[in-house]
């Protein structure tokens, strides 16, 4: 497997001293966590490569750690692999014919590509919100109750609680509490997106993946989603893909810059947006690309 680009290895915002001390990448993560320099990782990606056609590699030898209860943003130009990488975390790419995936992703130490693993159990732990809001053509209530019902919650009182908790967590409760039986498609775009977040949260995932969650929303709805991301990060690990660099700068704690399938730079958002180490990162975030 190709290893070489120094930017593509684990490069958390740490002192050079620590990087030099690293024995293995696993060892580094633990060393940093024990020093309090890095929140512990919930997801660990090691030497991940992915190809859709067996010839061209959309992801090349990616290694990075996603810190628990933090917001991590993936940025990069179209086609850089950021959505592909995000979709590896809940194995959505499995659905594509001919896809080849090498390397490893661990969720709390469990290899998520272990063939014995039930994908549905993984997707319960790793929820996802997409670019276009996609509520079911059902009532607001049924949308949020959908996941819990699938996993066996039948008791109405229990479901009521789950629905309210989900809608409150998604900052939508006050706007819809008197119209829970209305069709979800009657909500505004921003409300629909928050409903999808409520639906994802109802099954109590540990990780929430967001793929361009605001790109179809107006600035006010966007601001509400961003405020929600801030609210949620105390309880959930959030990974967000965005084309909007200002959004990445506003909402995330860590930022990864991907380009042509490689991880160019990964570090604290404050550092990436004020003083990145790599020239390619600098060129991209200052708008000097192509």
């Amino acid at each position: 497997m190709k290893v070489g680009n120094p930017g593509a290895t684990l490069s958390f915002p740490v002192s050079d001293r620590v990087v030099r001390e690293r024995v293995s990448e696993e060892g580094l993560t633990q060393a940093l966590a024990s020093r309090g320099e890095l929140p512990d990782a919930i997801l660990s990606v090691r030497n991940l490569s992915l190809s859709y056609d067996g010839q061209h590699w959309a992801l090349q030898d990616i290694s990075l750690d996603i810190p628990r209860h933090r917001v991590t943003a993936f940025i990069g130009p179209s086609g850089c692999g950021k959505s592909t990488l995000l979709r590896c975390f809940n194995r959505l790419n499995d659905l594509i014919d001919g896809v080849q995936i090498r390397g490893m992703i661990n969720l709390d130490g469990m290899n998520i590509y272990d063939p014995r693993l039930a994908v549905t159990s993984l997707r319960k732990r790793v929820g996802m919100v997409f670019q276009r809001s996609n509520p079911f053509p059902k009532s607001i209530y049924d949308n949020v109750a959908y996941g819990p019902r699938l996993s066996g919650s039948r008791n109405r009182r229990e479901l009521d609680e789950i629905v309210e908790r989900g809608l409150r967590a998604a900052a939508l409760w006050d706007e819809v509490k008197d119209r829970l039986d209305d069709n979800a498609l009657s909500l505004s775009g921003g409300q629909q997106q928050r409903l999808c977040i409520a639906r994802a949260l109802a099954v109590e995932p540990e990780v929430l993946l967001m793929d361009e969650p605001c790109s179809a929303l107006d600035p006010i709805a966007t601001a509400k989603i961003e405020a929600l991301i801030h609210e949620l990060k105390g309880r959930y690990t959030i990974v967000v893909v965005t084309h909007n660099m200002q959004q990445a700068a506003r909402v995330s704690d860590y930022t990864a810059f991907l380009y042509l399938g490689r991880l160019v730079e990964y570090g604290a958002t404050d550092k990436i947006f004020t003083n990145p180490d790599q020239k390619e990162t600098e060129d991209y975030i200052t708008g000097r690309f192509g």
Partner: protein
Amino acid sequence: MPQRAHTDPHFDEELRKLHEKLLEMGGLIENQIATALDALVQRDDSLARLTIEQDHAVNRLDVEIDDMCLRLLARYQPAARDLRLITTALKITTDMERIGDMAVNMCERALELNQEPPLKPFIDIPRMVDIALGMLRESLNAFVREDVELALKVCRDDDQIDALTHQVFRELLSYMMEDPHSITRGIRLMFVAKYIERIADHATNIGEMVVFMVKGKSIRHLDRIPPSV
């Protein structure tokens, strides 16, 4: 390292205008300091008044550059090097405006000193101006060329100014102790030395900000200027 052009050429154009304005302001204050010294040494009241008058142009540029920076921040949401360039511009224009004020203060003291016979020939004060002016010029060159070495040299040169200030103080003190009639002039000249010392401090600030702009590392408020960054 030469920078690639921005994808949006308007942004490059605006940044070029910002550079131009800063250099225009730099040129004005360099001139202000030089004429302030001439007004003092040649006891030329009209030159002193002219220099004081020039400060309005400097103040206008200060406001104009602030406006440009705010507009750039609001419109382009710059990041990384661009962000550091614009925040640096915002800060150094304040230092430059203060340098202009110091030149004005020198002229005000010159107008007062010109009312009385000279206390002594000017030796160290012109030397101080020479060094401070060099520091200012080099700090602005360092800004334009993004030259960290030159910026660090400016910071180091400040020691010479500090030493000369002490020397001037000791000398003026001896005059004032000898003859109480010299005290008014002695204190005014001491003020002038202090103004020049402040000009060098502002040039040092500019040098420090240039290091931050280029390297993203702050060297301000350190006990010693690092040999390299």
